[in-house]
């Protein structure tokens, strides 16, 4: 059995097993959830380490395929390449952390863990799937629990409305995606119809889709996936939904489920319809900028910590869209790094704000202040997370965003500059204002206590560690991502239709090869020039 199957099957199996455990065996339930997700995380880590980045032909590894309904073209097919490798690792870590920080849940414990594991296992399965059918079904499996979790364990006076809103939006999005995926399936000639992503990709590479079909399938997928990722202007479900959700659900939803739409664009929409991708590039960039700038501006106005984090997380996915819109390898790679970094970051910030809510019984930033003295660990981690949120080097997001900037410059300087403004200035403003009003200041907080003990600190450490490791050694991610996405980038770059957004490529001189002569020309000779 492929280890990928184990990664998502363990949480799902644990959820099933849990259903038969009596509800007052709380310790057993918690232990089972922890063990299942811990094992799944360790397997994901080993898959990440064992992935052969120097394979002679870039392709899927750890593949497993079983025919299931060959008549209709369904099969069980999982595999990993650079694109989903990092996402799966991130997902497993986020899921384990979400289970870890849920120790404060004590109403309907059993149902909570069942739903959380269904959600996490489902989305991990969607990332591992190479079959459109499973890809879609697994995601649907992950979507449903969010509704119940917000409704039952949620917080705030708007939680019922938030639950409905998130469900309405996501159902519409998923429906559009379903229509698009079915339309793709129907584009194949009848005898060879298949849901297998690998076969679909190679088929449409040989026989590009007809313009008439492409023309409306791509926007269906773009808007459908876009709603799932809270693409501007379909973003308003996210901040309120996350703000009302219980901590664990917010972590898995913001960290993991949100990546599904972006992943779908990169895995399905662009490889199958590169021409349309290029044509829609400008729209994608504009909407992505909408996320970065608009939602960033909204975040600046928020006084509730969870709404601020929610809006900032919506703003951050905008960078991934800008990167995708550039239709270049650098931009794509940057977008994937942004996705991985965003997963760690969103989960981490929601975990921390959940801790604060439990301790303070409020998330209104006007009531906070001076907490750093009382909560040194949580405070330090949160300040680091917020710094990561405003693009500080040393955290993974910085490299992702930088690659997005480099990738999109040749497409549009204006888009790039606005994105840089969003990353450096707007994010800086709301993050630093938040740090100022939560952690700094002279307010006293008797009775509030910091998290203590190795196990309680572990989830925060893991998520922060993910950010730092990939932030210092980006090649752990980028080498594999670039190898896997090179073919997609080649398709989008070669597609004959020049989009409205595409500009004449500036002739660029070959990169400077080694210039021994010039290197030796010492500084003195340069200074001589200066003293002329």
């Amino acid at each position, binding site marked *: 059995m492929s280890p990928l199957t184990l990664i998502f099957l363990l949480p799902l199996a644990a959820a099933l097993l849990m259903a038969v455990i009596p509800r007052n065996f709380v310790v057993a339930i918690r232990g089972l959830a922890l063990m299942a997700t811990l094992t799944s995380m360790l397997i994901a880590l080993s898959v990440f380490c064992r992935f052969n980045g120097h394979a002679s032909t870039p392709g899927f590894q750890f593949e497993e395929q079983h025919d299931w309904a060959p008549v209709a073209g369904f099969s069980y097919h999982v595999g990993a390449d650079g694109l989903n490798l990092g996402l799966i690792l991130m997902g497993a870590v986020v899921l384990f952390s979400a289970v870890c920080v849920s120790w404060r849940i004590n109403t309907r414990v059993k149902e909570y863990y069942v739903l959380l594991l269904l959600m996490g296992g489902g989305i991990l399965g969607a990332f591992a799937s190479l079959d459109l059918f499973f890809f879609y079904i697994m995601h649907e499996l992950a979507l449903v629990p969010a509704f119940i979790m917000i409704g039952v364990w949620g917080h705030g006076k708007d939680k019922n409305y938030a639950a409905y809103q998130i469900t309405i939006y996501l159902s519409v999005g998923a429906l559009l995606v379903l229509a698009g995926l079915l339309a793709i399936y129907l584009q194949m000639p009848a005898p060879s119809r298949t849901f297998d992503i690998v076969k679909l990709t190679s088929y449409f590479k040989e026989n590009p889709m007809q313009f008439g079909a492409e023309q409306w399938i791509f926007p269906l997928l773009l808007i459908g996936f876009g709603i799932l990722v809270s693409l501007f202007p379909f973003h308003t479900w996210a901040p309120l939904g996350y703000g009302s959700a219980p901590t664990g659900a917010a972590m898995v939803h913001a960290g993991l489920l949100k990546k599904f739409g972006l992943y779908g664009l990169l895995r399905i929409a662009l490889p199958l319809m590169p021409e349309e991708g290029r044509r829609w590039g400008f729209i994608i960039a504009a909407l992505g900028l909408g996320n970065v700038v608009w939602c960033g501006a*909204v975040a600046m106005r928020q006084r509730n910590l969870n709404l601020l984090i929610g809006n900032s997380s919506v703003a951050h996915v905008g960078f991934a869209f800008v990167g995708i819109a550039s239709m270049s390898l650098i931009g794509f790679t940057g977008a994937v790094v942004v996705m991985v970094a965003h997963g760690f970051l969103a989960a981490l910030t929601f975990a921390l704000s959940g801790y604060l809510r439990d301790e303070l019984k409020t998330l209104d930033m006007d009531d906070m202040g001076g907490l750093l003295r009382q909560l040194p660990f949580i405070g330090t981690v949160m300040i680091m997370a917020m710094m990561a949120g405003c693009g500080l080097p040393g955290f993974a997001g910085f490299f992702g965003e930088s690659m997005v900037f480099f990738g999109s410059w040749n497409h549009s300087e204006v888009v790039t500059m606005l994105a840089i403004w969003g990353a450096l200035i707007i994010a800086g403003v709301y993050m630093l204002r938040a740090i100022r009003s939560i952690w700094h200041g002279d307010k006293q907080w008797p009775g509030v206590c910091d998290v203590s003990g190795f196990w309680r600190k572990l989830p925060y450490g893991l998520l922060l560690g993910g950010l730092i490791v990939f932030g210092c050694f980006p090649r752990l991610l980028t080498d594999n991502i670039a190898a896997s996405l090179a073919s997609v980038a080649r398709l989008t770059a070669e597609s004959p239709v020049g989009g409205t957004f595409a500009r004449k490529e500036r002739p*660029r001189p070959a990169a400077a090869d080694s210039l021994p002569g010039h290197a030796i020309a*010492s500084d003195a000779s340069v200074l001589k020039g200066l003293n002329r």
Partner: protein
Amino acid sequence: MHEPIPWLILFLPLLAAVVITLFLQRDARLSAAVSVGAVLASFVLSVGLLVAFPYRTTPDDSFNWLQVGSLHIEFGLHLDNLSLLMLLIVTGVGSLIHVYSIAYMRGDPGFSRFFACLSLFMFSMLGIVLSNNFFQMFVFWELVGLSSYLLIGFWYERPAAADAAKKAFLTNRLGDFGFLTGIVLIWAMTGTLSFDGIKGQLMRDPEIFDTLATVMGLLIFCGAVGKSAQFPLHVWLPDAMEGPTPVSALIHAATMVAAGVYMLCRAFLISDVFFTVNALRVISWIGGITALLAALIALQQDDIKRILAYSTLSQLGYMVMAVGFGEPPAAMFHLTTHAFFKALLFLGAGAVIYAMHHEQDIWKMGALRKRIPLVYRTFMVGTLALCGLWPLSGFYSKDTILGAAWAHSPTLFAIGVLTAFLTTFYMFRLIFVAFFGKERSHVEGHPSKSRLIAYPLVILSVASVVGSVGIRQFATTQFAPATASQVPIFALFEPFKEAPMGAWLGLAAFALGLGSAYVCYFGQDTDPLPARLPAISRVLRHKFYFDEFYAEVIALFHDAPARFTNFCDKGIMLIVRLIHGTTEWTGRVLRLIQTGNLQTYTLLMAAGAALALYLMLTH
């Protein structure tokens, strides 16, 4: 070939910061030892490098940090004379200030955190110095901004310190916005980010930036404007004085704020066509304006640290101006001497504040000359060096810049001389008020007897006196020996011969400034200026209203759009909510007619039949 020494110099402070943060939070003594040990080791290794590689530029030592398509980013160390000089300044002055901090910060509850942050700062600063490409430099540029943020906000319980930290970081971010845009532009035009690569491209084709050459130069300059606090982004540096005094000395006087100047010199070393003539003109004017503006504001400050902060701004303006004249050696020379005497002045101010029980208003001091004679003497040396008295180091470096100004622009030369006059005036205002006169407060202060405070002061005052000689010899005998005979890099060291105008006018400005300060302030108990020139004094005390103006600008361009977008988002949510509400309401109404109650059904049926009957009969 991997040369381990530069890597050790860079990573030892990081190691110290990590070890202190993770393991030594509760052990003040050990964390100080680790931090000081790391910086001392870096200093010793830097001196070792000086001895081992005095004459040659070692090849870059790098590994592949990121490689995606045509984007290639290295992590590498570039060691040449410029970085070696900066390395020595940073680790040398840094070591002294670390030692001083042990005494200054003793007893503070955040003692370990302080040293962890200092070590993090050393790492980031050394990273800027040793970077071999723009991207890596930007990474460390941001990390320096972070450590500055952490250290300004070290006493985060004080609202003023927390606000100052935020302001410093965000103002720097504005500059970084331009810097990063410039870096992306460079990559898009040349396809490379490393200094050697850009040098090669520019040698092959000096016109490679085409019409964007000036824009590119100015974008890169933006980074320096933020970090070196040049007009119009100068507003953060005075507020940064809310941090502990050793931090002000190390970061906000000697090293970090000089990073902008260093970066500009580094860009010059890439190629002398890196900055176009127009870009250079802008740079020199920005420097000149900053020098004058800051000196003017310094005239009416009462806080001892703020006076020094504005003085730092003004001196940085000199350095940037020198770069604008195409004279990076002059800028580096002034950077070096300034690092010595300004660190000395800040450490002296720290000793004063310590003795005065954290009183920083000079009008509440007085007669300190007698109470803390050692501090007085060293502070005097620093002041004289800053004011450019012959033969102290400041005289030579300032004269080099004035000489360059004389050769390039008479107006900027006049501004330079005027600034020199103002510098002497405000510094001696400080000296006369704080160290002379009669005792104004009767706080039972405790003049520090700690040797940890005294030694750094003495060492730095020696450096301030002879700094120029050392640097001159360093420059002529070691910087470029092979070409020393042909290229007199630091030829302007014979000031009276080479640039008599600058030298004599500079000294005249000193004499005039000293005289006027004596007339105005010697023996005064209150500042006479606000009474005599109320309008000017008010403007200067409000720092030309920059803060107020910026607050308005931010409100207009960020807070107002934010309010608008938030309003729209609320509107969208309301609409969705209405749809949701309507559906639910319709459902509730429709439910009433499907109750399963037979009587209701009968009633409805009878009503319907009656209605149908009525309609049929009436037509």
